[in-house]
């Protein structure tokens, strides 16, 4: 199959999506989606392996040579991100079976899986493509399907939060479109590599700078960079559990990837550093870490608590980008991966609780840790990883991030990162205290441990948090290569 893998990664879920929609009810739609997700994960793994062995893959779509045709251009950076997305999908789907049957009306289940596959298509497409306009198309595929998925949540707020996300997401995407148009008007190309070659000759033009700014703002909205994060807490809170798990672990990560591409591949790094972009990232990152963490502490809904924590974690990634050094980019990429692991595990575990007691309010889960020890264990591991306790994946991210900050003697970010960890101790502590140390609310219901179908994927991710905290060959190794490709000129 050779290089066709890169295309198949996008085509397989794309073709499967309408197919799943017309399948009869029952478990067939789920089974098909599950197989597709496994296939994608395998392909993504093979792709990363071949990139690590043989260097950049360039795939010409339809045989049209770039820069005229669309090129899929895979290096360590996007192969890594594609793998994250595909693996999370493959772990989410086994989890989905029971959770979706409980939360989604039966007649909507086929379309639900169809939308989920479309979302996967969009996210994978963004990572694969080497065409800047193509990114927009895939971005909208993933966004539109995620609006639909979020609106399937059970409370009526799902509609309003989906609507809110739609408005903000569309504005973000349109900003991106404007930026792409302006860049195209000056370079005459949409191919990333081509554009990277031409851009240095036209950097002084105001049009290019304006285009750059539009793109930055548009993507910042998509990745929920503080203070453009307002859509995220609602969307994560009211979406069906499976959707929250999937989006939290993948959607913002892909947006971070696009950001990295634009900042470090398409635009020369001298330009990025000359603009205030990197400083803005540091400031927005620091504000996000502190403010969102404080917000998280005061939430009464667990999903919302974790959603705010996600905003804070995006702040860490923004810090890594803002340092614009090799170590900083490594930190951002490592955290990309690790955060997918920890948030995936946490949202899955919370989902298991929702499955049992049908609520995710902090005051409803008192004492559940005893009734659901395995779920509770996964929450503890995920929580420790979120705090960044050594031995967990979260520690590795924080370590590299702080190292990047120390390299530049940026003491304030160092302090912010450490304070952020302390705030994480508080909100994770709140969660664990409620689960374990508060007396059980006696409402006559007997709660038992979650079913195995939910526990196995949850623990898969939880153990991955421990594994990647001890053996970092994959994460650090790939991130090192990826950061080298992206560059990062600042020492």
């Amino acid at each position, binding site marked *: 199959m050779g290089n066709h893998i890169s295309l198949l990664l996008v085509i397989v879920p794309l073709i499967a999506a309408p197919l799943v929609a017309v399948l009869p009810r029952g478990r067939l739609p789920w089974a098909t989606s599950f197989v597709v997700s496994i296939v994608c994960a395998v392909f993504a793994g093979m792709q990363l392996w071949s990139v690590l062995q043989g260097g950049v893959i360039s795939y010409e779509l339809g045989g049209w040579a770039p820069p005229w045709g669309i090129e899929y251009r895979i290096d360590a950076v996007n192969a890594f991100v594609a793998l994250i997305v595909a693996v999370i999908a493959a772990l989410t789907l086994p989890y989905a079976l029971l959770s979706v049957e409980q939360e989604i009306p039966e007649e909507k289940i086929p379309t639900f899986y169809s939308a989920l596959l479309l979302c996967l298509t969009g996210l994978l497409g963004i990572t694969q493509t080497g065409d800047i306009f193509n990114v*927009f198309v895939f971005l909208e595929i993933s966004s539109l399907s995620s609006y639909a998925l979020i609106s399937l949540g059970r409370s009526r707020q799902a509609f309003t939060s989906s609507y809110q996300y739609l408005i903000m997401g*569309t504005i973000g995407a349109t900003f991106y479109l404007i930026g792409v148009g302006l860049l195209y008007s000056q370079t005459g190309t949409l191919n990333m590599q081509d554009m990277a070659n031409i851009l240095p000759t036209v950097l002084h033009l105001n049009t290019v700078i304006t285009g750059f700014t539009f793109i930055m703002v548009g993507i910042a909205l998509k990745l929920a960079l503080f203070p453009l994060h307002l859509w995220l807490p609602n969307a994560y809170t009211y979406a069906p559990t499976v959707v929250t798990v999937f989006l939290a672990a993948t959607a913002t990560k892909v947006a971070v990837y696009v950001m990295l591409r634009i900042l470090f591949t398409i635009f020369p790094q001298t330009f990025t550093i000359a603009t205030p972009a990197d400083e803005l990232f540091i400031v927005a990152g620091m504000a996000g870490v502190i403010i969102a963490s404080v917000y998280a502490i005061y939430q009464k809904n667990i999903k919302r608590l974790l959603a705010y924590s996600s905003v804070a974690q995006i702040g860490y990634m923004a810090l890594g980008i803002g340092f614009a050094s090799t170590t900083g980019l490594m930190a951002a990429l490592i955290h990309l991966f690790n955060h997918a692991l920890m948030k995936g595990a946490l949202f899955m575990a919370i989902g298991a609780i929702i499955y049992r007691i049908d609520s995710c309010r902090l005051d409803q889960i008192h004492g559940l840790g005893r009734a659901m020890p395995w779920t509770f264990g996964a929450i503890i591991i995920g929580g420790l990883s979120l705090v960044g306790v050594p031995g967990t994946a979260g520690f590795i991210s924080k370590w590299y991030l702080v190292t990047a900050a120390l390299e530049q003697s940026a003491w304030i970010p160092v302090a912010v990162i450490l304070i952020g960890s302390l705030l994480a101790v508080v909100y994770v502590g709140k969660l664990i205290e409620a689960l374990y140390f508060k007396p059980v609310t006696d409402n006559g219901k007997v709660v038992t441990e979650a079913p195995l179908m939910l526990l196995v994927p949850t623990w898969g991710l939880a153990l991955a948090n421990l594994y990647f905290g001890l053996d970092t060959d994959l994460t650090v190794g790939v991130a090192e290569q990826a950061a080298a490709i992206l560059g990062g000129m600042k020492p």
Partner: protein
Amino acid sequence: MEFIIGHYNYWVVIFLMMVGLYTVISRGNLVKKIIGLNIFQVSVFFLYISMGTVEGGAAPIIAEGVKVYSNPLPHVLILTAIVVGVATTALALALVVRIKETYGTIEEDEIHNLDHSL
């Protein structure tokens, strides 16, 4: 003066863009927000299309005696963007219908009150 007249297409784009964005932000009616969003998107379509125009160029169809063509690529791109825009609008309207069904209103402030009076 020439700067203003010479770039009139961009002024139109900017005007529409601002009108659209302002509508999205200022209106509380969910349908009006969508209209604003549409105007905003349309302004971008104009931006692309007017960008692709070559002075004195004809439509990019091969015909005898025509030497200068407009750039067709932005047209194609914007065709895609229009499709995306239509899909977005359709989805947004569908959501508004469901919001109307569950809340009985499509005014943002009333919805807000309904959610927080529980």
